């Protein structure tokens, strides 16, 4: 039941009590760029892509609740320029090589960058040394592609009830860690059917043996009509369609 409407880029958006700006907009078919949010998982507010102007004040659309009569601006030149900068920061922070990535064409980071018109990561690359963990029989963890969105952390903790993942370290040295003394994914309780495996927006967590199964041209984001805000579905997480 609608609790009222607010204005998003001049358009009236109905919302339900307690709903965030991002969720209400998505329900109305309006996409606000974001990477660290998926319906069904607790809002996080870390990627900052969904920052919007709420009555002149800037805030994340995924953590701010909609209120009747509020005026929200999202598709402004300035905000999109900032979003482009954020995506570029994510690209140089990790080691993202789209041509060799199984997730290409199904990757939300890549797709968000395309939608923002990114032609170059622009900043000086950090080229960090990060570990790839292929120990698990069914899942590979490629930390070079991790953007620290914590979707897997939340999914494993709140949906799978397993606490397989967490973020260790601080600042630019923050990294995805797993729940085992050996530090190996194989020694955790992760199973290939876990929600945590599906939610990764990039190619950091992939199911094995399904990479490159879908030819270029038929991958999810090769079909131009797909909305970014749709929840990642089974199969998509590993580059399938």
């Amino acid at each position, binding site marked *: 039941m609608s609790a009222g409407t607010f204005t998003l880029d001049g358009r009236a958006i109905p919302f339900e009590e307690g709903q965030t700006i991002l969720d209400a907009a998505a329900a109305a078919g309006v996409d606000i760029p974001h990477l660290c949010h998926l319906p069904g998982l607790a809002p996080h507010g870390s990627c900052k*892509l969904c920052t919007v102007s709420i009555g002149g004040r800037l805030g994340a659309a995924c953590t701010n609740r909609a209120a009747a009569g509020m005026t929200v601006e999202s598709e402004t030149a300035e905000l999109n320029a900032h979003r482009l900068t954020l995506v570029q*920061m994510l690209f140089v922070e990790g080691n993202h090589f789209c041509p060799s990535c199984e997730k290409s064409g199904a990757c939300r980071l890549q797709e968000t960058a395309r939608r923002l018109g990114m032609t170059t990561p622009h900043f000086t690359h950090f080229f960090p040394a990060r570990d790839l963990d292929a120990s698990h029989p069914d899942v590979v963890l490629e930390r070079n592609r991790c953007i620290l969105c914590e979707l897997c952390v939340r999914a494993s903790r709140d949906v799978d009830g397993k606490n397989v*993942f*967490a973020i*260790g370290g601080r*600042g630019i040295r923050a990294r995805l860690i797993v729940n085992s*003394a050996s530090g190996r994914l194989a020694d955790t309780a992760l199973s290939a059917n876990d929600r945590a495996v599906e939610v990764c927006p990039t190619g950091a967590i992939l199911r094995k043996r399904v990479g490159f199964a879908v030819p270029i041209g038929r991958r999810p984001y090769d079909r131009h009509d797909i909305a970014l805000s749709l929840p990642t579905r089974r199969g998509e997480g590993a580059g399938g369609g």
Partner: protein
Amino acid sequence: MPPEPADSAMACDLPAIARRWGNDPANLVQILRNVQESCGVVPSETLDQLARLVGVARVRLEATASFYSFFHADSHGAYEVLFSDNIIDRHAGKAELMQYLCERLWVEPGKVSEDGLVYVDETSDIGLADLAPAMLVNGLAVPSLDKARIDLLAELIRSRKPLAHWPAMLFEVPDNVRRAGPLLGEPFEPGAALASMLSIGAEETLARIEASGLRGRGGAGYPTAAKWASCRKAVGDAHCVVCNADEGEPGTFKDRVLLASHADLVIEGMTVCARVIGARRGLIYLRGEYRNLLPALGRTLERRRAAGLLGTDILGARGFDFDIAIHLGAGAYICGEESALIESLEGKPGKPRNRPPFPDRCGYRGQPTVVNNVETFACAARIAERGAARFAGMGTPQSTGTKLISVSGDCARPGVYEVPFGVTVREVLAECGAKHAHAVQVSGPSGTCVSFQEFERRIAFEDLASAGAFMVFSRERDMFEVARNFTHFFAHESCGFCTPCRVGTSLLRNIMDKLAAGKGSPYDMQEMKRIMCVLRDMAHCGLGHTAANPVVQTMQKFPEAYERRLKKLEFEPAFDLDDALETARLITGRDDEWAHLAAD
């Protein structure tokens, strides 16, 4: 007497440590601190055992253990020496002294000596800018370093003398109070504020606080009475009072003095607050760098319990129950942000929460919580004790009372000055004997850089809001290097939660380093401006919002400090092209002219 130095041979009784903290995962930071202190390390194997003892997933322990600077899985030897790395320490000769010590001990910075005896490195500002350069030895502050002290330290370390037997004078930290006012200068009888409050009642006490115009001393200046009133009204089972003693802003040290010599005033302010909001539980979050203050603070709490000023039925008032525990931080500036502080109190990495809700409604363990600065509580105690009129009559209409200023840097008399709000920068400079001041960094790196043209500006919430730092830079100081030091600080202290701050602070640091290396061009200035805008607009918390301030402000106020470094008109690589071939030269054994790339 300082405690024994960490000794890796010492048994590390994990069950006993966990038990001391109730086997409660919310006390994880404290448990890890005890492990670190008694074992000298937090070994990876420990985490499994601790995870079982407190009942959480190992990965969550690892997240906490790896977040804080003072926890480490590898041994730092029997003696861990950390030099404070604020720009004030640098100006006072820190780099030379650190090199000198390393030479004396045959050790490289950041590496344990080959015999496993000693580790020397740097750490963010440790709250001793008035006594710079300074260091921590096994977590304990040693101020006023000079060659003689370094010689002595090297000798003590080489002879493996236990820290407990080191000369006590090494650890003596004078207060350096240069000017005292109603807060510091007048006697305080423990219990006086409580007695006064009990005689007029909690409601009337809150009215007093309101009438005094007291605003938060941490820098933001939120009206204290409004915070208390809101928390008092908030629904909860266990209201909580938290004293933010995580004084991490470089150049600030007034809370150190308050806690060292006026702890009763602070604790009494907390107790007054507890009565007003209906809290039974209080916590002091003491920054890890102030570990040396812990024993005396513990004794003060004991003494107050014995005197009926803490515990049950305080001063005989039935049902007035309140007690305080001290939590130590572990080297994370971000924990000075109140919601990150609460996360840390709950045993988690110190990452700021999404707000609202604010702590007054949902704070420690989800309960209504007041978080105030050390100085705010001290002021509150004075107001409860003496009434609002005198306090309200001092300072300016919007900024009542006095402010403790931590003066450091290029001046004759560094130390703590209690000044009425509204004082000009010039007046403070005159009083501390700063004859050739060129700039003052007010309120630390996240504050305001005030140039010599603005010395008539006033310390007050309506002009220069300040948490208390006042770092003086004379004409010969290079303001670019000041900003570069602060940029390194923010990159080191960013919690890493949000994209703009995690990546942006490191990008800024790298560009400042590039300029320092003489590779800067106007292109890099544009780059920094772009990063600044994103930090200001998109970051999650105050650290990110203000992280670019030092660069923005020095660029604007001291442009020549940058122009001097822009040697190139065209873009230059950040890395050295010839250096990038060095590895290949070593592998191939080549050194011919084609094996080199000349600079343009």
